[in-house]
């Protein structure tokens, strides 16, 4: 008899279709042209959820590549397009409050919240080793923050209760970003080390003062999404500052609220009360299974965030199979491509490879193999080939060699070549665990050809996997392995 599915199984069963739906919609939204502030904010939240999901330890490699690809593309929209305005919304928020037009204030504060989201996303990218802090843009985040704090202050001083919710959300969002920056690994902070802590203290003092106002109190007490967010931030602040954690969640029934605020509240609880968090998930899971596919994107994104947090909390280690769909529109004919860029490639089948040749090939370490293989590459700027063949390994590196090529006059492609020398592979064949290194370049380049170069043979599971990826996603991946590699190097006088 089949065992009853556990809570974890049921959560995973829901994560898979929800992620498929969200990822497809995320790619669609990005390709749709104009994006409103609201749309951008939803995409930013989606990127944060994708980052959480990527933090799970085990995931099918193509799913990981597709999630990363979407995350980078959203980051481009949120950070590079929005924050490129050097957080000017922080500057204008004070000005707009001064003018007093409510629509203008709401619009500018919505942009400020998006800018805050941009810096939170940047922190995730830094943590992934894909970006660094300290650019001019980041410095403006800190230098303009004072204006935003003054803007929030001025907004409350107007004593317009209609704007209190907006002001409190913005202050809490800011507080959250500064908490995340202050709590980040010291090595990541570099520039922000002093500023974030100082500004965090200032924003926290402001927050504590404002929430004692009776009119402000009624705003967050009537709104569990906001009220729970406040408690979450108070508790996290107390924890990070080494204070006694005294803030407690009110006992409010949130079940009658719409899904989006309900999920926000559950998400806030999840950081502090695992038992209640688990209980709420268990209670709601059957309904979510039934209806979540019909929800709007924002509610689905929040659900993904809640479910992922549950898996993280329960130390989920099993392989996650999301089975994401994506198909490249490229039409690369590898049979034509390979002889174009690898000298004497067509002569490989006719070349006799002796045991002595294989012994030579196996004696090369990684830098030596890269250098010799580089000398077999043709039709590409030799300065670039030379530099790529000798570049040191870094954390941010995606393939051992990344070479720009012109396959057609209008578009640059990147030829990415991951290498594996015999010394690097201890087993007889290259195991499937190396598949991610082969597909990873596709998360950065839409137009990309990967040629995997290995002194040892690929294992059958790895070859099957490559074949499947080629067919399903139309990603051009070629392999030069073992005696083919020896033959190619021999033909080019490199063995």
């Amino acid at each position, binding site marked *: 008899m089949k065992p009853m599915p556990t809570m974890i199984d049921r959560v995973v069963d829901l994560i898979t279709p929800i992620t498929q739906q969200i990822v497809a919609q995320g790619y669609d939204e990005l390709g749709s042209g104009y994006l409103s502030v609201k749309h951008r904010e939803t995409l930013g939240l989606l990127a944060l959820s994708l980052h959480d999901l990527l933090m799970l330890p085990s995931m099918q490699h193509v799913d990981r590549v597709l999630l990363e690809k979407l995350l980078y593309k959203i980051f481009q929209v949120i950070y590079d397009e929005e924050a*490129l305005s050097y957080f000017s919304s922080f500057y204008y928020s004070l000005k707009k409050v001064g003018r007093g037009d409510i629509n203008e204030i709401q619009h500018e504060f919505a942009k400020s919240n998006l800018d805050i989201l941009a810096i939170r996303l940047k922190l995730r990218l830094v943590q992934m080793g894909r970006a660094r802090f300290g650019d001019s843009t980041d410095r403006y985040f800190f230098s303009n923050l004072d204006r935003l704090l003054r803007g929030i202050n001025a907004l409350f001083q107007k004593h317009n209760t209609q704007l209190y919710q907006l002001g409190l959300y913005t202050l809490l969002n800011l507080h959250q970003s500064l908490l995340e920056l202050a709590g980040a690994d010291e090595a990541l902070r570099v520039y922000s080390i002093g500023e974030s802590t100082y500004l965090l203290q200032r924003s926290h003092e402001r927050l504590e003062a404002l929430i004692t106002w009776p009119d402000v109190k009624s705003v967050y007490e009537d709104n569990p999404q906001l009220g729970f967010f406040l408690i979450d931030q108070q508790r996290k602040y107390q924890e990070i500052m080494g204070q006694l954690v005294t803030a407690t969640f009110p006992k409010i029934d949130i079940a009658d609220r719409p899904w989006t605020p309900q999920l926000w509240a559950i998400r806030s609880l999840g950081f502090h009360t695992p038992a209640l968090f688990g209980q709420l998930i268990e209670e709601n899971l059957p309904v979510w299974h039934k209806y979540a596919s019909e929800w709007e994107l924002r509610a689905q994104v929040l659900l993904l965030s809640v479910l992922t947090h549950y898996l993280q909390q329960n130390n989920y280690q099993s392989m996650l199979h999301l089975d994401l769909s994506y198909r490249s529109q490229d039409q690369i004919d590898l049979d034509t491509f390979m002889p174009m860029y690898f000298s004497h490639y067509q002569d490989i089948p006719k070349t006799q490879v002796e045991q002595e040749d294989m012994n030579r090939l196996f004696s090369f370490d990684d830098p030596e193999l890269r250098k010799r293989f580089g000398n077999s590459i043709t039709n590409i700027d030799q300065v670039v080939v030379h530099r790529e063949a000798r570049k040191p390994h870094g954390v*941010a590196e995606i393939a051992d060699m990344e070479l*720009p090529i012109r396959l057609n006059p209008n*578009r*640059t492609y990147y030829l990415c070549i991951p290498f594996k020398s015999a010394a690097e592979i201890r087993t007889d064949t290259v195991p499937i665990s190396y598949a991610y290194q082969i597909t990873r370049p596709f998360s950065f380049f839409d137009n990309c050809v990967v040629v995997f170069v290995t002194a040892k043979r690929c294992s059958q599971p790895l070859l099957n996997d490559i074949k499947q990826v080629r067919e399903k996603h139309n990603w051009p991946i070629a392999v030069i392995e073992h005696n083919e590699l020896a033959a190619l190097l021999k033909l080019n006088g490199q063995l």
Partner: protein
Amino acid sequence: MLKGEIEFPIQSENLRLLTHILHHVKVYTFGSWQLKKLKAKDVDIVVVSPDFAGVVNVKRVELVRRVLENQRVRIDPICLTQEEFLKLSLSSSKFAVTLKSRLSLVYETNADND
């Protein structure tokens, strides 16, 4: 160079190295070094190339930095395709207006690179 102007801190032969990774490229400068802040530690540049199409921005920045990494100043590149640059040029945001007023072309691919 006029009297009182500050020399652009990246030499054109170094900027020319970008042509090894980008077939067509224009490099503009803007930002603090232009404002004669001699102690500016970093140089803001805008690199415009059609070759950036289909490359995520984190990778564009990485590619440009790798080529220009051995400079005595830190490079902060904004990497745009021609379409993205045009969009920014047409924007009326304060940033775009300020950027346009300070942009100065410091390198462009020669016709023989085409």
